[in-house]
């Protein structure tokens, strides 16, 4: 895992001191809210419906047990005992006092964490596949380049005042688990003709009010030249991105309005100026950073675990958990385990301080001290020996963290919604809870198979509803919460934006509507092996519309 060098540590300390001073001047009255607001946003401090909100960066979703314990401590001592893991692999605290935030930032700095650039019109947390480094289908670990990008993008002087926020995601596997086509820049790691590492560069994806799929601007850039190319993209955006209208200021609008060919020409022209210059990352430097991410020493184990197989045979709950929450690991005898933060009827993505501490203990005891946060608001133990799975499972059961629903209908992504967010029009959490309760039976969920439900409480789409197989968008209809349903969204290489299927529903009608959609799928599917998304693509929306709305 990347460790701060002296420069990083000094920078974070200085930034914390600077912000401490800014907070003091705000509290004393020397700074007005207008003056303070851009400063606090650069340090991840929002003002939400009920209180301030602090968003802490978790670079490429990776953290150690020591760091997780600090997040738990902050939840316990400075908040109301819980935190929320987000769709960008970060954590949010909903109740920090402004006067306490400098102390919180000092504690975070002690464990090499911070809240810098988690808000504002700058380059945000670069996200990556949550199974990075472990996945059996991985071409190479994307986290080293994500770290290089993090260093390049932190307080980049030229890009601190972009037209709008900027989000980058990296995928290192054949299967894109980072939704790269829905980011401002998405990077797909590929091997070049000589076997060297390079990237596909996708530009102009995004969700929000105007969802768009990114364009493949450059099919291959060598790894050593990637920063120069990213700089070229950011320069074109910084120069030509719209600043007249906040809702048309993302790079996706620039790409759309300029046209793919012309924007590519602009970027290539800028890149030609930068190529081979100071932004070329020497191969030795990449190797140096890669060294931080080498796989922990995992003693070889048999591919199948007798211990696990025996335990599974006598414990149906464990068997279900293994069938659902384990992901194939590149090292035989190991697995990556999803710790679902979607308990049936619970709040998606929330974890108590006690749960965070317990997960930290598990990582230390069984997980080579490594944890991940997925953009699907779950936690991951990326490296667990199959032999240890029964013990880990037993501990998870005792903490209420053993829900066997990874990728199933109750593994819902939901934004905080009107319960927390000043931007929201409707609540999303209670909708998630009611759907979760309706489909709570473990076997029923397994029978339904992979099905992603994503819920946003307003058109900013922080719940990623546009890329849900079933998407739910909460709106305000004459003062009443009302929910539109979309079908057919997909975040991966088969990228698709969901389409609205018809008239919306009141909150208490939503679970029935989802059930109707699920029942329709079960009726039309060729066999249980045909998942929801493929069946939908095969038969189209008509059967679902018919079932929901009847013949017109």
């Amino acid at each position: 895992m990347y460790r701060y060098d002296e420069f990083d540590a000094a920078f974070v300390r200085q930034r914390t001191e600077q912000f401490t001073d800014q907070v003091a001047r705000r509290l004393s009255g020397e700074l007005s809210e207008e003056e303070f607001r851009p400063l606090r946003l650069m340090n991840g401090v929002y003002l939400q419906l009920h209180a301030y909100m602090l968003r802490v960066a978790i670079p490429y979703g990776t953290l150690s047990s020591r760091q997780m314990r600090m997040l738990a401590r902050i939840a316990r001592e400075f908040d109301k005992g819980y935190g929320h893991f987000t769709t960008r692999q970060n954590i949010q605290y909903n109740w920090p006092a402004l006067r306490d935030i400098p102390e919180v930032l000092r504690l975070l700095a002690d464990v090499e964490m911070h809240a810098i650039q988690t808000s504002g019109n700058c380059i945000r947390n670069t996200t990556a596949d949550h199974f990075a480094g472990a996945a059996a289908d991985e071409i190479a670990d994307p986290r080293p380049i994500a770290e290089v990008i993090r260093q390049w993008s932190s307080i980049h002087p030229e890009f601190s005042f972009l037209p709008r926020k900027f989000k980058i995601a990296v995928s290192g596997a054949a299967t894109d688990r980072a939704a790269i086509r829905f980011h401002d820049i998405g990077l797909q790691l590929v091997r070049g003709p000589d076997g060297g590492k390079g990237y596909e560069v996708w530009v102009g994806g995004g969700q929000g009010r105007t969802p768009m799929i990114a364009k493949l601007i450059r099919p291959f850039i060598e790894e050593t030249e990637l920063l120069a190319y990213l700089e070229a993209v950011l320069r074109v955006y910084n120069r030509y991105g719209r600043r007249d209208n906040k809702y048309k200021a993302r790079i996706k609008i620039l790409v759309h309005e300029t046209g793919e060919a012309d924007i590519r020409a602009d970027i290539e022209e800028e890149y030609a100026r930068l190529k081979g210059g100071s932004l070329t990352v020497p191969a030795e430097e990449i190797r140096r950073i890669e060294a931080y991410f080498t796989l922990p020493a995992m003693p070889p184990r048999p591919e199948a675990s007798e211990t696990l197989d025996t335990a599974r045979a006598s414990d149906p709950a464990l068997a279900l958990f293994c069938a659902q929450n384990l992901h194939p690991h590149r090292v035989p005898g190991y697995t990556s385990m999803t710790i679902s933060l979607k308990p049936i009827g619970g709040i998606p993505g929330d974890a108590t301080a006690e749960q965070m501490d317990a997960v930290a203990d598990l990582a230390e005891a069984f997980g080579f001290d490594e944890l991940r946060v997925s953009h699907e608001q779950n936690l991951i133990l990326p490296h667990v020996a199959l032999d240890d799975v029964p013990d880990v499972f037993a501990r998870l059961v005792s903490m209420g963290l053993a829900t066997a629903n990874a990728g199933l209908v109750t593994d819902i992504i939901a934004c905080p919604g009107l319960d927390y967010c000043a931007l929201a029009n409707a609540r999303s959490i209670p909708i998630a809870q009611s759907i979760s309760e309706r489909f709570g039976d473990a076997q029923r969920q397994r029978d339904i198979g992979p099905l992603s439900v994503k819920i946003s409480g307003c058109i900013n789409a922080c719940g990623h509803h546009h890329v849900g197989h079933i998407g739910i968008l909460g709106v305000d209809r004459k003062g009443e919460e009302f929910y539109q349903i979309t079908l057919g969204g997909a975040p991966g290489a088969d990228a698709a934006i969901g389409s609205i299927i018809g008239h919306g529903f009141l909150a208490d009608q939503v679970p029935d509507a989802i059930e109707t959609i699920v029942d329709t799928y079960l009726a039309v599917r060729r066999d249980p092996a045909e998942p929801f998304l493929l069946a939908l693509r095969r038969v189209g929306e008509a059967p679902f519309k018919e079932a929901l709305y009847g013949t017109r």
Partner: protein
Amino acid sequence: MQKAAASTLQTITANRLSDGIVVFLGAHDRWVERITEARVFEGAEAIAAATAVGEAANRARLILGPYAIDVTTGPRGPVPVRFREKIRAFGPTARTDVVAPAFGESVAA
């Protein structure tokens, strides 16, 4: 802030600067956490005067972002008309285990 109609009842709300907690203008121009203790203002003149108090408190760095909300009078005091303002006054509906509903008032009504 909008001018209110003569018959509109309003309360002034803001966030406390030091900790961000939602507060309301109460008796003696003090800011209270419980909407049940908030003063209710009726008529354009009263609301304008209350608004001025809010703006002064903003300048005095006690609170930030003051604004007026429409309320009705309930058995325990003012209740916001708008749903969003109800949630803001009474807390997130999803976390009553951690954030207790204010004094028995429930948002989900």
